[in-house]
């Protein structure tokens, strides 16, 4: 089915191929990045909206 679609677009098929490959690479990069994210950080980020109206705890910063 994809071949049919691509054949239909005289001469500009490369644009479509380029765009799809570009997105594919980007997507893989995002997956890798997300996969490698630190668990502790993710947990902290996840809870950010819930902490913002609690009385602030003193945080230890690096």
């Amino acid at each position, binding site marked *: 089915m994809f071949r049919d679609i691509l054949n239909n*677009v005289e001469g500009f098929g490369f644009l479509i191929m380029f765009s799809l490959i570009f997105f594919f690479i*980007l997507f893989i990069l995002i997956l890798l990045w997300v996969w490698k994210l630190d668990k502790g950080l993710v947990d902290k980020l996840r809870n950010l909206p819930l902490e913002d109206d609690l009385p*602030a705890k003193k945080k230890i*910063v690096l």
Partner: protein
Amino acid sequence: MEDKIINAEAESGLVTFYYDNRIVWNFALATIIWGAVGMLVGLIIAIQLFYPALNLGIPYTTFSRLRPLHTNAVIFAFVGNCIFMGVYYSLQRLCRARMFSDLLSKLHFWGWQIIIVSAAITFPLGITTGKEYAELEWPIDIAIAIVWIIFGINFFGTIAKRREKHLYVAIWFYIASWITVTVLHVFNSIELPVSFLKSYPVYAGVQDALVQWWYGHNAVAFFLTTPFLGLMYYFLPKAAERPVYSYKLSIIHFWSLIFLYIWAGPHHLLYSTLPDWAQTLGMIFSIMLIAPSWGGMINGLLTLRGAWDKVRESPILKFMVVAVTAYGMATLEGPALSIKSVNALSHFTNWTVAHVHIGALGWNGFLTFGILYWLVPRLFRTELYSKKLANAHFWIGFIGIVIYAVPMYWAGIAEGLMWKQFTPDGILQYPNFLETVTQIIPMYIIRAVGGTLFLTGVIIMLYNLFKTVKKGSLVSNEQAQAPAIMESHIETTRPHRWLESKPLWFGLVALLAILVGGLVEIIPMYVIKTNVPTISSVKPYTPLELEGRDVYIAEGCYTCHSQLVRPFRSETARYGEYSKSGEYVYDHPFQWGSKRIGPDLHREGGKYPNSWHYNHLVNPPAISPGTIMPPFPWLAKDKIDIDFTSSKIKAMISLGVPYSTMLLNKTKQEYLYQANSIVADLTDAGIKADPESKIIALIGYLQRLGTDIKGKTTAQK
């Protein structure tokens, strides 16, 4: 004194500051009021579709002038103010900082409201660019840009002074929305002013169409969707009192969504004269959009896992659950509508209207209501006046959505099929377009009932929130404390420097992600000639026709009529030769339309005598019994300012339309020569008309439409 406090705070490591709640409340109030107004206008035009006389016989309240008012009011006033309300509330808290500047907050608020008021004045007056969702004229476009930049400075300024080094995913959605709307607004609004309230876009025809729908689609994507996803990621966890289901999923949701969305514009132009490759790109990326969209929906719904008992209890969560589900429905349906064979049926029909309002009423409307019920009592440190009324609102609104959407799906599919239906002998079963209009009038009536219910819900909310506000008192400045992390560490360590510059870095990547799609689709349309084949017999409009075209735009004829015959047998049999891109090269702006409440007009020229058009415009039911087209009797009285026509020609010349400069000196003669010949023809038919009246110009334009290639074998080269 100040120093002492700061010293004391420095010792404890905490700073005390105040959130600006007043600005949040201002935006909330604007959301509620404009929401009610915008939906009331929606209801008025819904009723006019079966009872045109509701316009009371005056121009300012006629369907075609009010429809842009409805769309702009609900999108930019209702949804827009809700976005600002949510951003100003959540950003301050997520950054643990007051807004960057109170002055900018106020300028933003009042600037935006003035823009809305100017829209509410100019649209009924027929002052419009004629480009869907970008109808505001150039001075207002500039005002929008200024207010938007003010918002941007305030927004990024707050991020820069934040005390929480990490940016929650909601803020990412806000950043991407701000950047993309900026880019879209600037590029789609490049226009050449001819007077204080009239301009022509620099693009023409198919190029204008591509830029317009690149904008139009992303108005949906980056105004109705991404900022609201940011709100969802903040307010849903807040209301449910539990964190979002998967933060990692939200990151994937974000990046794939903003990257894919920007390519999808051409799905509004399927089977148009846009080159195939661009249509195919739009279609493929639209279909891929389903994945991140559903990722987001599932993430939202799973946030409530194990809390369904709470949902049963809380009207707020109920609103939010339906909102997220409606988002899922609209984003399942959207990709389906982007498949060419489905779009062949759905395009130009009420199916699109049903799709729109599942998103608009369900996703935007219900999420807004949920947030308002959660937020307003908090701003006023009190409880909601009545949970019962909120529940009533929920059910009335929900039934309203169903009664709105179901008849529109029905009507859409019915009219789509009727337009395509052939008899066994191979002729159109419904050759008279009017038959397909009168068939669906009962559906229009039921839809208006749905709209009435939905609006009733809003009024109940208005009352409930009013009573809530009366009970409490606004905490204009809410005290908060936070460790002052940013100040103390930025200069010292390198990793922190990098982190602090992250929003900028992040914004750049987001900008790149959205630019790629736009550039790949749009640039080839300009640099590669073969994308718009020229047709030698296509000539610029005469002065009369050009003025007539401006009447067509000002009256909003494009809100009901398309000018695009698609290459289907059913359309060529009904309207004539299918449309070619070369026919539109002098159309600043293009007028393809997106809805066929009435028939296509691209081959209208020469179809009927001038007298038919005259009588039809002044009183449509006299010519087409049962029609729902509103009468335009004022066109016979109102006059064209013919002395100004040469300025318009001059503007067209500078946009590259090949008029001879000789024409500039005799514009008026040429105009009157053609006008008088139409008037003479009308006189023969027993009609007395003024050659300078708008109706003559409009008839001149209608009689020109599509005639450049009519009768000639396709003169494409």
